[in-house]
C-alpha cells in the first residue's frame, strides 16, 4: 500500500502508443557492486595517505549523536586541522558517520546514502546503539548491530561519546586507512548478498534497487 510509484504503469507516448514503465528497472541502474582491486605498493600507500588525511564526512545526522558532531567544527575541537570536513552530498564524501541509534526507517536511508558513496568509503559508528542497540536493544524498531547491514570500520563506544572520543575515533580510522585495512566497500561488494539479505529482512517496504548507484 502506498507504493504505486514502484509499480509498473502504462503511459501514452506522444504518438499515442502505450509504453510500459517499470520504475525500478527503468529509472535505476541495476548493476551489482564490484570489489575493486587496490593499486599496488607505494602508489596505494600514497593514495591511502591521501585518503586518510582528507576525510570528507557525509553530513547526515542519523541519530541523537549528531549533536555531538557539531562541536567538532568549533574552535575548541576544530576537526579541520585533521583534514576532516563536511560534505553535503554522499557523492563527494568518503566517511559516513552513523551518529547513534538507527530505526528501520532510517536504516533504509542510510543504506541508500552509503551505496551512493564511492569506493573506498569508510563507516564510523557512534555510540552503544550502533554496537548492540544500546538502551533501545529491545525496541520493536531499532537495529542492534550495524555491522550486519554494512561494514563498519570504527565503533566509538559511549552513550553518547564526547567529541574527544570522536577525535580519537577518527584518528583510529586514519590508522586503519593508512594500514590498508579500510576496505569496507570491497567487503560490502564481496558479501553483498549477505548484507542485502539482512537489510531486506527488516526493511519490509523495499522500494529501491538492490544497489543504489
Amino acid at each position: 500500500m502506498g507504493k504505486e510509484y514502484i509499480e509498473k504503469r502504462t503511459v501514452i507516448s506522444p504518438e499515442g502508443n502505450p509504453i510500459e514503465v517499470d520504475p525500478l528497472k527503468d529509472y535505476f541502474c541495476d548493476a551489482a557492486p564490484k570489489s575493486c582491486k587496490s593499486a599496488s605498493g607505494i602508489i596505494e600507500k600514497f593514495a591511502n595517505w591521501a585518503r586518510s588525511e582528507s576525510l570528507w564526512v557525509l553530513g547526515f545526522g542519523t541519530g541523537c549523536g549528531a549533536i555531538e558532531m557539531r562541536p567538532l567544527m568549533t574552535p575548541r575541537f576544530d576537526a579541520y586541522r585533521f583534514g576532516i570536513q563536511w560534505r553535503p552530498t554522499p557523492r563527494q564524501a568518503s566517511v559516513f558517520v552513523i551518529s547513534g541509534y538507527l530505526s528501520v526507517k532510517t536504516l533504509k536511508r542510510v543504506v541508500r546514502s552509503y551505496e551512493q558513496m564511492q569506493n573506498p568509503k569508510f563507516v564510523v559508528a557512534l555510540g552503544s546503539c550502533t554496537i548492540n542497540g544500546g538502551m533501545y536493544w529491545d525496541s520493536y524498531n531499532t537495529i542492534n548491530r550495524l555491522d550486519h547491514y554494512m561494514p563498519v570500520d570504527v565503533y566509538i563506544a559511549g552513550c553518547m561519546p564526547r567529541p574527544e572520543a570522536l577525535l580519537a575515533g577518527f584518528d583510529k580510522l586514519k590508522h586503519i586507512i593508512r594500514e590498508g585495512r579500510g576496505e569496507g566497500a570491497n567487503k560490502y561488494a564481496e558479501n553483498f548478498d549477505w548484507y542485502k539479505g539482512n537489510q531486506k529482512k527488516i526493511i519490509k517496504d523495499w522500494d529501491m534497487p538492490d544497489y543504489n548507484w
Partner: protein
Amino acid sequence: MVAPIYIIATLLGVAFALGLFGKKMNSMAGLLSVVALGFASFISLEWLAGFWLYDRAAEYIYTAGFKPPFSINLLMGKDEALFTSLINIAGFFGTVYLWDKLKKIGSNGYVTLMGMILGLNVIIMTRDLFNLFVFLEISSIATAGLIIFSQNLKTIAAGFKYMLATGIISGILLLGIIFMYYFTGTLNIDDFLAVHSLAVKGFGVAVFFVLISIVLELKPFPANGWGLDVYESADSGIAAMISAGTATASFFVMYKLLPLGTPQFHMVLAGIGLATFIGSNLMGLKQTNPNRLLGYSSIGQVGLLVTILGLSEFLGERTTFIAYSILISHFLAKAGLFWISGIVKRSEIKEWAVLRNNRLLLILFGVFIFTLIGFPPFPSFFGKWDLVLNMASNNQYFWIVGILIGSLLEGVYLFRWLGYALKLDNAEMPAFEVKWNKVLPIAVFGAATFVVGYFVSSIHPYAKIINYIPLAVALAFVLIDFLPVYVKNTLAILAMAYYYYYLYPTLSSFGAVFGAIFMVGGIVTLIAGYAFKGQRRGFYPFALMMFAGLIGLIEAKTTLGFFYAWEVMTVGSYFLIIRGKKSMPHALSYMLFSMGGAYLMLAGFAIASVGQFNLDMSTLSHVLVHPTWVFILLAVGFLTKTASLGLHIWLPGAHAEAETDVSPMVSAILLKAGVFGLVTLFLAMGDQLIGGDVSVIYLLGWLGAITAVMGNLMAAFQEDAKRLLAYSSVGVLGYILFGLSLMSHLGWLSAVSISVTHFMFKSLLFLAIGGVVWRVKTKEMYRMGGLIKRMPFSFFSVLIGIIVLAGLPPLSGFSGKWIFYNAVMAKEWYLQGALIFFSGMIAFLYTFRLIHSVFLGQLKDEHREVKEAPFWILVPQYMIIGVLLYFSAIPNSLLKPIGKIISPYFPTGGLEWTGQHAVSTYGYWNGLVIFYIVIAIFVTVLVWLIINNRKAQKVKQFNIVFAAERPFKPETSHYAYNFYAHYRKAIGILVEPKITGWWEGVAEWAHAMGDKFRKIYNGNGQSYLIHIMAFIVIIYLISFGGF
C-alpha cells in the same frame, strides 16, 4: 459595332416580352434573360474594345429625332463603355447566380431584374438630368421589387426602409433638377457644364440638391443605415447586384456630375467620403454578420472612391486610373464575396470555417479579400499607390493619413474573417451545397482580378517594369498542388536554385549578402520539407511567394517595385504563419502590423517621390521635401518587420505557432527583409535630424539597445520553447538595429555578420527544436527534459546553436560581439553598448534554459521511446553546423567579404587582416588560433580525465543523490518551470506586458468606438430618414454656411 441603344432596346424588349410568358415557362424566361444580358454585355464590351484597341471617338445617341435640350441624349464614351460593361457583366453573372431563385419567383423576377440593369445602363449613359432621375427611380423601384420577392420579414422591412430613403432622396433630386432647369432652361448635363460658370446665386443651391442626393445614393456615413439593412438582409445575389451594380452606377453619376460642383464642394465631398471610409470601417470592426460586414466594407469602399473624386483636383489626370482601379477591384471582390456568402449561408463570420470544405471557394475568398485591401498583384494596389503618391506631391498629408487609417481598419475585420475561415474548427458543420451556376460567376470574377491586375500593372508606367516571374512561378504551384510533397519540394528547391543561379551574377554589394540569406536560406530550410508526408496543400505557393517577395526586394529598381515585393512577401508569409495550429490570432496581428508598417512605408515612399522625375530607389538619396519624415516613416515601416520594441508583439506568437520548417523561414530569413530595408534606407538617406539637433539614427540606436535587452529578458521568462526562440529573435534584431545605427564600418560589419549568423543559428535552433516538438508534440519546455538520451543529434545542433547565439568564443558568434565592442568604442556609445552587453548576458539565461529544460534533466515517461527528429529535418541542421564551424575556424572567410562590401560606404575604421588575425583601433583577435588553442586544451583535459576516470558505471535518471530519499516522478524532479523565478522576482517588473497591453488597449478602444458609433443605426426606418435630413442640413451648412 452594335449601337448602344440596342442595350436598352434588348433589355426593355425582353422585359416586356417576359411579361407575356406564363408560369410554366420560367426556364425559358430565364434563358432569354441570360441571353439578353449576355448580348448587352457583348455590346458594351465591344464598345470598350473599340475604344481601347481602335481609339474610337465617343458617340452621342439622340432620341426622338431632336437634339438636346429638346430631347434626351445618351453618350457612349470610353468611360460609359467600361461602366456599362461592368453593369452588364454583373447582371449577366448575377442572373446566372440567381438562376434557381429567380426561377422560383417566375418571370416577374426576370422582368424586375431586367428593369434594374436597364435602369443602371441608362443612368450611366444618359446626358439628361431628368432622364437620370427617372432611371434612378426605375432602378430603385426594381431593386425594391427584387427585395420584396423575399418572404422574410426582416428583408421586407429592410426593403421598406430602402424605399423610404430612396424616395426621399429622389424627391430631393427632383427638386434640385427642376430648379436647375428653372435657372438654366435646360436639362442637358453638357449644357449645365457650359453655363456652370455664369451661375446665379440660386443655381448653386439647386446644384447642391442634385449633388447631395447623388451623394446620398452613395450611402455616406452616417446617413446610410437603410443601405446596410438591405445589404444584410437581401439575398446575397441581390446584395451583390446592389453592391457591384448600383453602387458602381451611382459612382459613375457622381463622376459625371462632378464638374458641376465648386472646388469647395469637392473638398466637402472628399471629407464626406473619408468620413464614410473611416467611419464604416470602424463600425465594421464589431460586425459578425458576413453580409452586414460586407455592407460596411462596401460603403467604406464607395466612400474611398468618393474621396478620390473629391480630391480629383489634386490627382489630376491620374484620377481616372486611381478611381477605376480601386472601383474595379471593389466591383469584382464585393460581388464575389457576396456570392460566396450566398453559398455558405452562415450568419456568423465565425461559422465560416465551413468554407474550408470547398477548396476553390476558399481560395477565391482569399483572393477577393486581398483584392479588396489592395495587395499586389491586384489592381487596387496600384490604385492606392498612385493615390498616395499624388496626394503627397500636393502636400495633402491629412488625406493620406485618413485613407491609410481607413484601409487599416478594413484590414482588421477582413483578415479576422479570413483567419476564422482558415483556422476555426469546422468539424461539426455540415457541408454546404455547391452548384456550378453559383460557383462559375465567382470563379470568373476571381480570375478577372488577376487579369485586371495584370492589365492595370501593364498600363502603369512603373508597375510594368516589375519582374512578375517569381510571383507567377509561386502561383503556378497552386496548379500542381495535388502532387505529393517530395515532388513539389524538389521542384521548389530547383526553382529557387535556378533563380539564384540566374540572379547571382547580377547581385552586388548588400544585395549579394541578403540574396544569399534569402535564397540559400530558403533552399536550406526547404530541405526540411521532405520530412512532411502527403501533399501539404497550400504550403508551396505561399512559401515561394514569400521568397519571390524577398527576391523582389533585392531586385527592386524602383520604390514601387520595392513596395510591391514587400507586400508580396507579406502575403506569402501571412499564409505560412497561419498554417500553424493555433496561429490564427497571431497571424492576424502579424498581418495588421505588417499592413501598418507597409502603409508607413507607402507614405514614406510617397513623400520621397515628391518632385522627383522617376521612382528609382536612388531618389531616396536626394529627397526634396521632409526628408526627416521620409526617413522616420520608412524606418518605422521596416522596424515593424524587424519587430523592434513597441512593434514586436506580433512576432512571438506568429513565429512560435508556425510549423517546424516555417518558423526558421519566418524568423531566420523573413526578418532580414526589414534589415535589408534598413540597410537600403541608411545607405540612401544617411542620418536625419529632428528639429535640427536630435539624430534619428541616434534614437534608433537606443531603440535597438533597449529592444535587445527587453527581447532577451522576455525570452528568459518563456515556458514555450519556440516562443523563447521567437523573443530571442526580437533581441538579436535589436542588436542588428543597434549595429546599423552605429553608422560606422565596424558597426555595419557586426550588424551584417550577425545577420548572416543569426540566419544560421536561428534556422538551426528552430529546426532542431521544431524537430523535437515534432516528436514530443508539445512546446512547453517543462514537459520535456532528458531528451539528450533520445535525440543526441538534435541536442548537438542546439548546443552549437546556443553557443553561437550566446556569442561564446571560439565559435563564430563571438566575431560579431568582438567587432561590435570595438565599434561601440569608436562611436563612444558606451551606455548603449553596456546595455547590449547586458542583453548578451541575458542570452545566456535563455539559451541555458532552452537546452537544459528540453534535453537535460529528467526524461519523462511518455518520452521514453521517442525517436530522433526526422532525418530530413536534421539534414539542413548539419549543413548549417558545417558552415558555422567553418566560419568559426576561418572567420575572415565571412568577415572579409562583408568588409569589402561595406568599405565603399564607410571607408575608414575597418579591420586589418593578417591571415586570420584581425586588428582594429582598439583591439585584436585571431579566430583560428583561438580555435586551435581551445581545442588543444579541451582535448588535453579530456584525455587527462579519461585516464583518471575509466570504467565509469553508467547510471540511470533516478540514480541521483536526493537527500537520502529517492525521486518519485520525473516530473517532480525536473527543475524547469519558471526557471528564473528569482530573477523574475528581482526585475520581473520590466517584462510585464505593458506594450502588449497598450496595443490591446488601442484595439479595444477602436472596437468600442466602432460599437458606439454603430448604435446610431437603431433599425428604425424613420431615424434613418432623420439622418438623411440632418445630413443634408449639415452638409448644406458646411458648403454654404461658411464653416
